[in-house]
Protein backbone atom coordinates (compact mmCIF):
# COMPACT_ATOMS: atom_id res chain seq x y z
CA UNK A 1 0.00 0.00 0.00
CA UNK A 2 2.71 2.39 1.07
CA UNK A 3 4.86 1.30 -1.84
CA UNK A 4 2.13 1.90 -4.39
CA UNK A 5 1.42 5.36 -3.00
CA UNK A 6 5.10 6.15 -3.25
CA UNK A 7 5.11 4.85 -6.82
CA UNK A 8 2.11 7.00 -7.61
CA UNK A 9 3.82 10.07 -6.26
CA UNK A 10 6.99 9.34 -8.20
CA UNK A 11 5.06 8.79 -11.43
CA UNK A 12 3.30 12.13 -10.98
CA UNK A 13 6.56 13.87 -10.26
CA UNK A 14 8.07 12.41 -13.43
CA UNK A 15 5.05 13.18 -15.57
CA UNK A 16 4.55 16.72 -14.28
CA UNK A 17 7.16 18.62 -16.37
CA UNK A 18 5.74 17.17 -19.59
CA UNK A 19 2.17 17.69 -18.39
CA UNK A 20 2.87 21.31 -17.49
CA UNK A 21 4.77 22.11 -20.70
CA UNK A 22 2.24 20.43 -22.97
CA UNK A 23 -0.63 21.88 -20.97
CA UNK A 24 0.75 25.39 -21.17
CA UNK A 25 2.18 25.42 -24.68
CA UNK A 26 0.04 22.88 -26.50
CA UNK A 27 -3.36 22.39 -24.90
CA UNK A 28 -3.85 25.97 -23.72
CA UNK A 29 -3.14 27.43 -27.20
CA UNK A 30 -5.55 24.93 -28.75
CA UNK A 31 -8.15 25.85 -26.14
CA UNK A 32 -7.52 29.50 -26.87
CA UNK A 33 -8.38 28.82 -30.52
CA UNK A 34 -11.83 27.77 -29.31
CA UNK A 35 -12.22 31.09 -27.47
CA UNK A 36 -10.88 33.15 -30.37
CA UNK A 37 -13.31 31.50 -32.76
CA UNK A 38 -16.19 32.97 -30.74
CA UNK A 39 -14.95 36.59 -30.97
CA UNK A 40 -15.00 39.07 -33.81
CA UNK A 41 -12.49 41.15 -35.68
CA UNK A 42 -11.98 44.82 -34.90
CA UNK A 43 -11.46 47.24 -37.76
CA UNK A 44 -7.69 47.44 -37.12
CA UNK A 45 -7.38 43.66 -37.47
CA UNK A 46 -7.11 42.90 -33.74
CA UNK A 47 -9.49 40.69 -31.78
CA UNK A 48 -12.65 42.24 -30.39
CA UNK A 49 -13.84 40.36 -27.28
CA UNK A 50 -17.54 40.02 -27.92
CA UNK A 51 -19.03 36.53 -27.73
CA UNK A 52 -20.66 35.54 -30.99
CA UNK A 53 -21.35 32.59 -33.29
CA UNK A 54 -21.01 34.83 -36.32
CA UNK A 55 -17.74 33.26 -37.54
CA UNK A 56 -19.27 29.80 -37.73
CA UNK A 57 -22.42 31.15 -39.38
CA UNK A 58 -20.26 32.93 -41.94
CA UNK A 59 -18.10 29.84 -42.48
CA UNK A 60 -21.15 27.73 -43.30
CA UNK A 61 -21.92 30.07 -46.18
CA UNK A 62 -18.29 30.59 -47.24
CA UNK A 63 -18.04 28.55 -50.42
CA UNK A 64 -14.34 29.44 -50.85
CA UNK A 65 -13.62 27.82 -47.47
CA UNK A 66 -15.47 24.63 -48.33
CA UNK A 67 -13.77 24.46 -51.71
CA UNK A 68 -10.36 24.84 -50.03
CA UNK A 69 -11.16 22.24 -47.39
CA UNK A 70 -12.44 19.83 -50.02
CA UNK A 71 -9.34 20.37 -52.17
CA UNK A 72 -7.06 19.70 -49.16
CA UNK A 73 -8.87 16.46 -48.36
CA UNK A 74 -8.88 15.42 -52.01
CA UNK A 75 -5.13 16.07 -52.37
CA UNK A 76 -4.38 14.25 -49.09
CA UNK A 77 -6.46 11.22 -50.13
CA UNK A 78 -4.78 11.08 -53.55
CA UNK A 79 -1.30 11.42 -52.02
CA UNK A 80 -2.00 8.79 -49.35
CA UNK A 81 -3.42 6.35 -51.91
CA UNK A 82 -0.54 6.76 -54.36
CA UNK A 83 2.14 6.45 -51.64
CA UNK A 84 0.40 3.29 -50.39
CA UNK A 85 0.28 1.74 -53.87
CA UNK A 86 3.98 2.52 -54.44
CA UNK A 87 5.17 1.69 -50.92
CA UNK A 88 3.49 -1.64 -50.26
CA UNK A 89 5.27 -3.54 -53.06
CA UNK A 90 8.45 -1.59 -52.31
CA UNK A 91 8.34 -2.50 -48.61
CA UNK A 92 7.58 -6.10 -49.58
CA UNK A 93 10.54 -6.09 -51.95
CA UNK A 94 12.87 -4.75 -49.25
CA UNK A 95 11.55 -7.08 -46.55
CA UNK A 96 12.16 -10.16 -48.70
CA UNK A 97 15.78 -9.34 -49.63
CA UNK A 98 18.72 -10.92 -47.81
CA UNK A 99 19.55 -9.15 -44.57
CA UNK A 100 22.51 -7.15 -45.80
CA UNK A 101 20.53 -5.76 -48.75
CA UNK A 102 17.62 -4.84 -46.52
CA UNK A 103 19.81 -2.45 -44.55
CA UNK A 104 21.21 -0.82 -47.69
CA UNK A 105 17.79 -0.43 -49.29
CA UNK A 106 16.25 1.01 -46.12
CA UNK A 107 19.13 3.41 -45.76
CA UNK A 108 18.44 4.47 -49.34
CA UNK A 109 14.87 5.38 -48.35
CA UNK A 110 16.04 7.23 -45.26
CA UNK A 111 18.56 9.58 -46.85
CA UNK A 112 16.06 11.81 -48.69
CA UNK A 113 13.84 11.63 -45.59
CA UNK A 114 16.60 13.14 -43.47
CA UNK A 115 17.26 16.05 -45.80
CA UNK A 116 15.57 19.29 -44.93
CA UNK A 117 12.04 19.38 -46.25
CA UNK A 118 12.33 22.87 -47.68
CA UNK A 119 15.27 21.57 -49.71
CA UNK A 120 13.08 18.75 -50.98
CA UNK A 121 10.35 21.19 -52.00
CA UNK A 122 12.87 23.44 -53.66
CA UNK A 123 14.24 20.51 -55.67
CA UNK A 124 10.82 20.21 -57.30
CA UNK A 125 10.79 23.90 -58.10
CA UNK A 126 14.09 23.43 -59.92
CA UNK A 127 12.61 20.48 -61.85
CA UNK A 128 9.15 21.82 -62.65
CA UNK A 129 9.72 25.56 -63.05
CA UNK A 130 8.73 27.37 -66.24
CA UNK A 131 12.41 27.52 -67.17
CA UNK A 132 13.08 24.38 -65.11
CA UNK A 133 14.97 21.25 -65.97
CA UNK A 134 12.01 19.38 -67.48
CA UNK A 135 10.98 22.30 -69.68
CA UNK A 136 14.60 22.78 -70.78
CA UNK A 137 14.64 19.13 -71.80
CA UNK A 138 11.35 19.45 -73.68
CA UNK A 139 12.63 22.53 -75.45
CA UNK A 140 15.80 20.70 -76.36
CA UNK A 141 13.68 17.98 -77.94
CA UNK A 142 11.79 20.60 -79.91
CA UNK A 143 8.57 20.31 -77.91
CA UNK A 144 6.29 22.91 -76.38
CA UNK A 145 7.10 23.79 -72.75
CA UNK A 146 4.49 22.69 -70.20
CA UNK A 147 3.02 24.71 -67.39
CA UNK A 148 4.00 22.43 -64.49
CA UNK A 149 4.62 24.73 -61.57
CA UNK A 150 1.88 26.47 -59.56
CA UNK A 151 -0.42 23.54 -60.03
CA UNK A 152 -2.06 20.72 -58.11
CA UNK A 153 0.19 18.28 -59.93
CA UNK A 154 3.29 19.98 -58.54
CA UNK A 155 1.86 19.93 -55.00
CA UNK A 156 0.88 16.26 -55.26
CA UNK A 157 4.28 15.23 -56.66
CA UNK A 158 6.24 17.06 -53.97
CA UNK A 159 3.98 15.72 -51.22
CA UNK A 160 4.37 12.14 -52.43
CA UNK A 161 8.09 12.75 -52.59
CA UNK A 162 8.25 14.10 -49.05
CA UNK A 163 5.86 11.67 -47.40
CA UNK A 164 6.87 8.40 -49.09
CA UNK A 165 9.29 7.29 -46.33
CA UNK A 166 6.58 7.74 -43.68
CA UNK A 167 4.59 5.11 -45.57
CA UNK A 168 7.45 2.75 -46.44
CA UNK A 169 8.90 2.47 -42.92
CA UNK A 170 5.79 1.26 -41.03
CA UNK A 171 4.88 -1.04 -43.92
CA UNK A 172 8.38 -2.46 -43.88
CA UNK A 173 8.16 -3.03 -40.13
CA UNK A 174 4.88 -4.91 -40.61
CA UNK A 175 6.06 -6.94 -43.59
CA UNK A 176 9.34 -7.83 -41.92
CA UNK A 177 7.48 -9.25 -38.95
CA UNK A 178 5.06 -11.14 -41.22
CA UNK A 179 5.79 -14.85 -41.47
CA UNK A 180 6.11 -15.28 -45.23
CA UNK A 181 5.83 -19.06 -45.06
CA UNK A 182 2.14 -18.49 -44.31
CA UNK A 183 1.71 -17.47 -47.94
CA UNK A 184 3.18 -20.81 -49.00
CA UNK A 185 0.72 -22.52 -46.70
CA UNK A 186 -2.15 -20.59 -48.27
CA UNK A 187 -1.00 -21.58 -51.78
CA UNK A 188 -0.68 -25.20 -50.72
CA UNK A 189 -4.23 -25.03 -49.46
CA UNK A 190 -5.36 -23.90 -52.90
CA UNK A 191 -5.58 -20.12 -52.56
CA UNK A 192 -4.67 -18.03 -55.59
CA UNK A 193 -2.39 -15.00 -55.25
CA UNK A 194 -5.08 -12.41 -54.76
CA UNK A 195 -6.93 -14.53 -52.23
CA UNK A 196 -3.80 -15.41 -50.26
CA UNK A 197 -2.81 -11.75 -50.21
CA UNK A 198 -6.23 -10.57 -49.16
CA UNK A 199 -6.90 -13.19 -46.51
CA UNK A 200 -3.43 -13.79 -45.09
CA UNK A 201 -0.96 -10.99 -45.75
CA UNK A 202 -3.25 -7.95 -45.82
CA UNK A 203 -4.95 -8.51 -42.43
CA UNK A 204 -1.59 -9.13 -40.75
CA UNK A 205 -0.02 -5.99 -42.18
CA UNK A 206 -3.08 -3.79 -41.62
CA UNK A 207 -1.44 -2.13 -38.60
CA UNK A 208 1.40 -0.97 -40.84
CA UNK A 209 -1.04 0.39 -43.42
CA UNK A 210 -2.96 2.28 -40.72
CA UNK A 211 0.19 3.78 -39.23
CA UNK A 212 1.51 4.76 -42.67
CA UNK A 213 -1.80 6.21 -43.82
CA UNK A 214 -2.17 8.39 -40.72
CA UNK A 215 1.47 9.49 -40.82
CA UNK A 216 1.05 10.55 -44.47
CA UNK A 217 -2.50 11.91 -44.39
CA UNK A 218 -2.15 14.35 -41.48
CA UNK A 219 0.88 16.36 -42.60
CA UNK A 220 -0.43 16.28 -46.16
CA UNK A 221 -3.89 17.64 -45.42
CA UNK A 222 -2.37 20.33 -43.20
CA UNK A 223 0.51 21.27 -45.46
CA UNK A 224 1.42 24.90 -45.78
CA UNK A 225 4.92 25.16 -47.21
CA UNK A 226 4.50 22.77 -50.16
CA UNK A 227 1.35 24.40 -51.47
CA UNK A 228 2.72 27.84 -50.70
CA UNK A 229 5.86 27.30 -52.78
CA UNK A 230 4.56 25.04 -55.55
CA UNK A 231 0.77 25.38 -55.56
CA UNK A 232 0.00 28.89 -56.78
CA UNK A 233 -3.69 29.73 -56.75
CA UNK A 234 -4.64 26.33 -58.14
CA UNK A 235 -3.10 24.48 -55.20
CA UNK A 236 -4.34 26.78 -52.43
CA UNK A 237 -4.95 24.55 -49.40
CA UNK A 238 -6.30 24.89 -45.87
CA UNK A 239 -2.83 25.65 -44.47
CA UNK A 240 -2.58 28.62 -46.82
CA UNK A 241 -6.02 29.81 -45.75
CA UNK A 242 -4.88 29.73 -42.10
CA UNK A 243 -1.73 31.63 -43.05
CA UNK A 244 -3.91 34.20 -44.82
CA UNK A 245 -6.15 34.80 -41.80
CA UNK A 246 -3.41 34.74 -39.18
CA UNK A 247 -0.60 36.57 -40.93
CA UNK A 248 -1.32 38.22 -44.26
CA UNK A 249 -4.67 39.91 -43.52
CA UNK A 250 -5.21 39.19 -39.82
CA UNK A 251 -8.67 37.99 -38.87
CA UNK A 252 -7.82 35.66 -36.00
CA UNK A 253 -11.40 34.87 -34.93
CA UNK A 254 -12.29 33.73 -38.44
CA UNK A 255 -9.01 31.83 -38.79
CA UNK A 256 -9.65 30.18 -35.43
CA UNK A 257 -13.09 29.04 -36.56
CA UNK A 258 -11.43 27.52 -39.64
CA UNK A 259 -8.89 25.74 -37.38
CA UNK A 260 -11.69 24.37 -35.26
CA UNK A 261 -13.66 22.93 -38.18
CA UNK A 262 -10.44 21.57 -39.65
CA UNK A 263 -9.37 19.87 -36.40
CA UNK A 264 -12.82 18.40 -35.81
CA UNK A 265 -12.88 17.08 -39.37
CA UNK A 266 -9.43 15.53 -38.91
CA UNK A 267 -10.28 13.83 -35.63
CA UNK A 268 -13.54 12.65 -37.19
CA UNK A 269 -11.68 11.24 -40.19
CA UNK A 270 -9.24 9.34 -37.96
CA UNK A 271 -12.09 7.97 -35.87
CA UNK A 272 -13.96 6.93 -39.02
CA UNK A 273 -10.84 5.32 -40.45
CA UNK A 274 -10.36 3.19 -37.34
CA UNK A 275 -14.00 2.12 -37.43
CA UNK A 276 -13.94 1.20 -41.10
CA UNK A 277 -10.62 -0.66 -41.09
CA UNK A 278 -11.58 -2.56 -37.98
CA UNK A 279 -14.63 -3.88 -39.74
CA UNK A 280 -12.94 -5.04 -42.93
CA UNK A 281 -11.64 -8.41 -41.71
CA UNK A 282 -14.80 -9.18 -39.72
CA UNK A 283 -17.28 -8.05 -42.33
CA UNK A 284 -15.74 -10.20 -45.02
CA UNK A 285 -17.92 -13.04 -46.28
CA UNK A 286 -16.40 -16.45 -45.78
CA UNK A 287 -16.18 -18.73 -48.82
Amino acid at each position, binding site marked *: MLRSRQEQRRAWWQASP*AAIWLGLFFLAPLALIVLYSLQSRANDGTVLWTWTWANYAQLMRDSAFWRTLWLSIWIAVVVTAITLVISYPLAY*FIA*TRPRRWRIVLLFGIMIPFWT*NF*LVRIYAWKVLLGNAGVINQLLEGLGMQPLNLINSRLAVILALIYGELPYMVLPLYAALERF*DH*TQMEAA*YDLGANHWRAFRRVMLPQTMAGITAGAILVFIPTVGTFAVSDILGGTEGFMIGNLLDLH*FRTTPNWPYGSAISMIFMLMLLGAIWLYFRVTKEVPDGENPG
Partner: protein
Amino acid sequence: MAKTLADARANVRHGGERPVTRKRVPWGAWALRINALLTYIFLYAPIVILVLFSFNAAKFGTRWTGWTSQWYRDLWQSEKLQAAAWTSIKVASISTLIATAIGTLAALALSKTRWRGRRAFDSAMYLPVIIPDIVLAVALLGFFTLSFRGLQSWLGLNLQLGLSTVIIAHVAFNISYVTVVVRASLANFDQRLEEAAADLGAAPWQIFWRIKLPLILPGILGGALLAFTLSLDDFVVTFFARGPGVNTLTTEVYGRIKRYVSPEINAISTVMLVLSMVLVVLSLFMQRRQSSRTV
Protein backbone atom coordinates in the same frame (compact mmCIF):
# COMPACT_ATOMS: atom_id res chain seq x y z
CA MET B 1 20.61 -8.82 -26.38
CA ALA B 2 16.87 -8.79 -26.97
CA LYS B 3 17.52 -7.27 -30.35
CA THR B 4 19.93 -10.02 -31.37
CA LEU B 5 17.39 -12.60 -30.30
CA ALA B 6 14.73 -10.90 -32.40
CA ASP B 7 17.13 -10.76 -35.34
CA ALA B 8 17.97 -14.43 -34.93
CA ARG B 9 14.31 -15.28 -34.95
CA ALA B 10 13.74 -13.15 -38.03
CA ASN B 11 16.61 -14.98 -39.72
CA VAL B 12 15.10 -18.36 -38.96
CA ARG B 13 11.74 -17.27 -40.24
CA HIS B 14 13.14 -15.80 -43.40
CA GLY B 15 15.26 -18.84 -44.07
CA GLY B 16 18.56 -17.19 -43.24
CA GLU B 17 20.18 -15.29 -46.07
CA ARG B 18 17.85 -16.81 -48.64
CA PRO B 19 15.05 -14.57 -49.89
CA VAL B 20 11.67 -16.23 -49.48
CA THR B 21 9.95 -15.08 -52.67
CA ARG B 22 9.23 -18.05 -54.89
CA LYS B 23 8.68 -17.87 -58.60
CA ARG B 24 4.93 -18.12 -58.17
CA VAL B 25 4.05 -15.21 -60.41
CA PRO B 26 6.40 -15.16 -63.39
CA TRP B 27 6.19 -11.38 -63.82
CA GLY B 28 5.76 -10.66 -60.09
CA ALA B 29 9.42 -10.54 -59.18
CA TRP B 30 10.14 -8.27 -62.12
CA ALA B 31 7.25 -5.96 -61.33
CA LEU B 32 8.59 -5.64 -57.78
CA ARG B 33 12.08 -4.86 -59.03
CA ILE B 34 10.88 -2.28 -61.53
CA ASN B 35 8.68 -0.62 -58.92
CA ALA B 36 11.63 -0.44 -56.53
CA LEU B 37 13.97 0.87 -59.22
CA LEU B 38 11.54 3.59 -60.32
CA THR B 39 10.89 4.63 -56.72
CA TYR B 40 14.59 5.02 -55.99
CA ILE B 41 15.01 7.05 -59.18
CA PHE B 42 12.05 9.19 -58.12
CA LEU B 43 13.65 9.70 -54.69
CA TYR B 44 17.12 10.56 -55.92
CA ALA B 45 16.73 12.33 -59.28
CA PRO B 46 15.56 15.65 -57.78
CA ILE B 47 18.40 15.66 -55.26
CA VAL B 48 21.04 14.79 -57.84
CA ILE B 49 19.80 17.54 -60.18
CA LEU B 50 19.75 20.02 -57.30
CA VAL B 51 23.35 19.26 -56.38
CA LEU B 52 24.45 19.31 -60.01
CA PHE B 53 22.96 22.74 -60.64
CA SER B 54 24.66 24.20 -57.58
CA PHE B 55 27.82 24.03 -59.71
CA ASN B 56 26.18 25.69 -62.71
CA ALA B 57 27.80 28.92 -63.82
CA ALA B 58 24.55 30.54 -65.05
CA LYS B 59 23.16 33.03 -62.56
CA PHE B 60 19.56 32.68 -63.73
CA GLY B 61 17.46 29.77 -64.89
CA THR B 62 18.48 26.16 -65.32
CA ARG B 63 20.37 26.29 -68.60
CA TRP B 64 23.76 24.64 -68.16
CA THR B 65 26.61 27.02 -68.98
CA GLY B 66 29.63 25.44 -67.26
CA TRP B 67 31.12 24.50 -63.90
CA THR B 68 31.81 26.91 -61.07
CA SER B 69 32.25 26.86 -57.32
CA GLN B 70 31.44 30.53 -57.01
CA TRP B 71 28.10 30.02 -55.27
CA TYR B 72 29.80 28.17 -52.45
CA ARG B 73 32.30 30.97 -52.04
CA ASP B 74 29.39 33.44 -51.91
CA LEU B 75 27.76 31.33 -49.22
CA TRP B 76 30.89 31.36 -47.18
CA GLN B 77 30.80 35.16 -47.21
CA SER B 78 27.10 35.63 -46.52
CA GLU B 79 26.78 36.87 -42.96
CA LYS B 80 23.01 36.63 -43.06
CA LEU B 81 23.09 32.92 -43.78
CA GLN B 82 25.74 32.21 -41.20
CA ALA B 83 23.77 34.07 -38.57
CA ALA B 84 20.67 32.08 -39.53
CA ALA B 85 22.60 28.81 -39.35
CA TRP B 86 23.84 29.72 -35.87
CA THR B 87 20.32 30.56 -34.76
CA SER B 88 19.14 27.19 -36.04
CA ILE B 89 21.85 25.34 -34.14
CA LYS B 90 21.15 27.34 -30.98
CA VAL B 91 17.40 26.69 -31.14
CA ALA B 92 17.89 23.01 -31.93
CA SER B 93 20.46 22.45 -29.14
CA ILE B 94 18.55 24.21 -26.38
CA SER B 95 15.16 22.78 -27.32
CA THR B 96 16.67 19.29 -27.66
CA LEU B 97 18.22 19.47 -24.17
CA ILE B 98 14.95 20.57 -22.56
CA ALA B 99 12.74 18.21 -24.58
CA THR B 100 15.03 15.24 -23.92
CA ALA B 101 15.00 15.78 -20.16
CA ILE B 102 11.23 16.29 -19.99
CA GLY B 103 10.44 13.56 -22.52
CA THR B 104 12.64 11.00 -20.75
CA LEU B 105 10.95 11.70 -17.42
CA ALA B 106 7.56 11.32 -19.09
CA ALA B 107 8.63 7.98 -20.57
CA LEU B 108 9.76 6.81 -17.12
CA ALA B 109 6.38 7.79 -15.70
CA LEU B 110 4.58 5.95 -18.50
CA SER B 111 6.67 2.82 -17.93
CA LYS B 112 4.94 2.45 -14.57
CA THR B 113 1.68 0.74 -15.23
CA ARG B 114 -0.72 1.86 -12.53
CA TRP B 115 -1.16 5.43 -11.51
CA ARG B 116 -4.10 7.77 -11.66
CA GLY B 117 -4.17 10.03 -14.73
CA ARG B 118 -1.94 7.74 -16.78
CA ARG B 119 -4.46 7.20 -19.59
CA ALA B 120 -5.21 10.90 -20.02
CA PHE B 121 -1.49 11.70 -19.93
CA ASP B 122 -0.72 8.96 -22.45
CA SER B 123 -3.28 10.18 -24.97
CA ALA B 124 -2.28 13.83 -24.49
CA MET B 125 1.28 12.82 -25.41
CA TYR B 126 0.04 11.69 -28.84
CA LEU B 127 -1.60 15.01 -29.66
CA PRO B 128 1.50 16.56 -31.25
CA VAL B 129 1.57 13.63 -33.68
CA ILE B 130 -2.10 14.03 -34.65
CA ILE B 131 -2.47 17.82 -34.77
CA PRO B 132 -1.01 19.30 -37.98
CA ASP B 133 1.86 21.70 -37.32
CA ILE B 134 0.09 24.63 -39.01
CA VAL B 135 -2.72 24.42 -36.43
CA LEU B 136 -0.20 24.38 -33.56
CA ALA B 137 1.66 27.24 -35.21
CA VAL B 138 -1.31 29.62 -35.47
CA ALA B 139 -2.54 28.58 -32.01
CA LEU B 140 0.87 29.40 -30.50
CA LEU B 141 0.92 32.76 -32.28
CA GLY B 142 -2.47 33.59 -30.79
CA PHE B 143 -1.49 32.26 -27.36
CA PHE B 144 1.83 34.11 -27.09
CA THR B 145 0.34 37.37 -28.32
CA LEU B 146 -2.56 37.24 -25.87
CA SER B 147 -0.56 36.12 -22.84
CA PHE B 148 2.17 38.71 -23.48
CA ARG B 149 -0.48 41.42 -23.68
CA GLY B 150 -1.98 40.12 -20.45
CA LEU B 151 1.36 40.07 -18.66
CA GLN B 152 2.05 43.58 -19.92
CA SER B 153 -1.15 45.04 -18.54
CA TRP B 154 -1.19 43.14 -15.24
CA LEU B 155 2.47 42.93 -14.27
CA GLY B 156 4.05 45.49 -16.55
CA LEU B 157 6.29 42.82 -18.07
CA ASN B 158 7.41 43.62 -21.57
CA LEU B 159 7.71 40.29 -23.38
CA GLN B 160 7.91 39.90 -27.16
CA LEU B 161 7.87 37.12 -29.68
CA GLY B 162 11.48 36.22 -30.28
CA LEU B 163 13.99 33.44 -30.11
CA SER B 164 12.71 32.12 -26.77
CA THR B 165 9.17 31.66 -28.11
CA VAL B 166 10.62 29.58 -30.95
CA ILE B 167 12.52 27.41 -28.47
CA ILE B 168 9.43 26.96 -26.27
CA ALA B 169 7.41 25.92 -29.32
CA HIS B 170 10.05 23.44 -30.47
CA VAL B 171 10.15 21.84 -27.03
CA ALA B 172 6.34 21.55 -27.14
CA PHE B 173 6.33 19.46 -30.31
CA ASN B 174 9.53 17.53 -29.49
CA ILE B 175 8.64 16.12 -26.05
CA SER B 176 6.29 13.52 -27.52
CA TYR B 177 8.83 12.24 -30.03
CA VAL B 178 11.51 11.85 -27.36
CA THR B 179 9.02 10.01 -25.16
CA VAL B 180 8.05 7.60 -27.95
CA VAL B 181 11.69 6.65 -28.59
CA VAL B 182 12.69 6.36 -24.91
CA ARG B 183 9.57 4.30 -24.18
CA ALA B 184 10.64 1.80 -26.80
CA SER B 185 14.00 1.32 -25.12
CA LEU B 186 12.39 1.16 -21.67
CA ALA B 187 10.18 -1.65 -22.96
CA ASN B 188 13.36 -3.67 -23.54
CA PHE B 189 14.69 -2.87 -20.08
CA ASP B 190 14.73 -5.89 -17.81
CA GLN B 191 12.77 -4.96 -14.63
CA ARG B 192 14.51 -7.74 -12.71
CA LEU B 193 17.78 -5.80 -12.81
CA GLU B 194 16.12 -3.07 -10.77
CA GLU B 195 14.74 -5.57 -8.29
CA ALA B 196 18.08 -7.33 -7.98
CA ALA B 197 19.84 -4.03 -7.28
CA ALA B 198 17.22 -3.13 -4.67
CA ASP B 199 17.67 -6.53 -3.01
CA LEU B 200 21.39 -5.91 -2.87
CA GLY B 201 20.74 -2.69 -1.00
CA ALA B 202 21.01 -0.02 -3.69
CA ALA B 203 19.14 3.25 -3.09
CA PRO B 204 16.59 4.34 -5.72
CA TRP B 205 18.85 7.10 -7.01
CA GLN B 206 21.74 4.64 -7.28
CA ILE B 207 19.56 2.22 -9.22
CA PHE B 208 18.57 4.97 -11.59
CA TRP B 209 21.99 6.54 -12.22
CA ARG B 210 24.13 3.40 -12.15
CA ILE B 211 21.85 0.82 -13.75
CA LYS B 212 18.77 2.14 -15.51
CA LEU B 213 20.18 5.27 -17.11
CA PRO B 214 23.25 3.64 -18.72
CA LEU B 215 21.02 0.89 -20.16
CA ILE B 216 18.44 3.20 -21.67
CA LEU B 217 21.02 5.79 -22.75
CA PRO B 218 21.02 4.70 -26.42
CA GLY B 219 17.25 5.26 -26.46
CA ILE B 220 17.66 8.70 -24.89
CA LEU B 221 20.38 9.63 -27.39
CA GLY B 222 18.19 8.36 -30.23
CA GLY B 223 15.31 10.49 -28.97
CA ALA B 224 17.58 13.51 -28.63
CA LEU B 225 18.88 13.07 -32.15
CA LEU B 226 15.33 12.84 -33.50
CA ALA B 227 14.38 15.99 -31.58
CA PHE B 228 17.46 17.78 -32.90
CA THR B 229 16.67 16.92 -36.52
CA LEU B 230 12.97 17.76 -36.16
CA SER B 231 13.96 21.10 -34.71
CA LEU B 232 16.47 21.83 -37.49
CA ASP B 233 13.91 20.72 -40.06
CA ASP B 234 11.00 22.73 -38.71
CA PHE B 235 9.76 25.64 -40.73
CA VAL B 236 6.06 26.16 -40.06
CA VAL B 237 6.07 26.47 -36.26
CA THR B 238 9.21 28.64 -36.32
CA PHE B 239 7.66 30.85 -38.98
CA PHE B 240 4.69 31.71 -36.76
CA ALA B 241 6.29 31.65 -33.30
CA ARG B 242 9.33 33.79 -34.12
CA GLY B 243 9.65 37.46 -33.43
CA PRO B 244 10.53 40.04 -36.07
CA GLY B 245 14.12 39.76 -37.25
CA VAL B 246 14.58 36.23 -35.92
CA ASN B 247 15.61 33.91 -38.71
CA THR B 248 16.57 30.27 -38.57
CA LEU B 249 18.09 28.60 -41.59
CA THR B 250 14.67 27.36 -42.73
CA THR B 251 12.87 30.71 -42.48
CA GLU B 252 15.82 32.45 -44.15
CA VAL B 253 15.91 29.91 -46.97
CA TYR B 254 12.12 29.98 -47.31
CA GLY B 255 12.11 33.69 -48.14
CA ARG B 256 14.54 33.04 -50.99
CA ILE B 257 13.00 29.80 -52.26
CA LYS B 258 9.60 31.39 -52.53
CA ARG B 259 10.82 34.19 -54.75
CA TYR B 260 13.19 32.59 -57.21
CA VAL B 261 15.35 29.68 -58.32
CA SER B 262 19.05 30.47 -58.19
CA PRO B 263 22.30 28.54 -58.02
CA GLU B 264 22.98 30.14 -54.62
CA ILE B 265 19.93 28.45 -53.15
CA ASN B 266 21.06 25.21 -54.78
CA ALA B 267 24.39 25.63 -53.00
CA ILE B 268 22.72 26.30 -49.61
CA SER B 269 20.52 23.27 -50.17
CA THR B 270 23.53 21.11 -51.00
CA VAL B 271 25.30 22.21 -47.83
CA MET B 272 22.17 21.43 -45.76
CA LEU B 273 21.93 18.08 -47.52
CA VAL B 274 25.52 17.18 -46.69
CA LEU B 275 25.06 18.30 -43.08
CA SER B 276 22.00 16.11 -42.56
CA MET B 277 23.80 13.16 -44.13
CA VAL B 278 26.68 13.67 -41.70
CA LEU B 279 24.11 13.60 -38.88
CA VAL B 280 22.63 10.35 -40.18
CA VAL B 281 26.01 8.66 -40.55
CA LEU B 282 26.97 9.85 -37.08
CA SER B 283 23.79 8.41 -35.55
CA LEU B 284 24.26 5.10 -37.36
CA PHE B 285 27.85 4.98 -36.18
CA MET B 286 26.72 5.58 -32.60
CA GLN B 287 24.10 2.85 -32.86
CA ARG B 288 26.61 0.44 -34.36
CA ARG B 289 29.04 1.06 -31.52
CA GLN B 290 26.28 0.66 -28.99
CA SER B 291 25.04 -2.63 -30.46
CA SER B 292 28.54 -4.07 -30.80
CA ARG B 293 29.02 -3.31 -27.11
CA THR B 294 25.84 -4.97 -25.95
CA VAL B 295 26.19 -8.09 -28.11
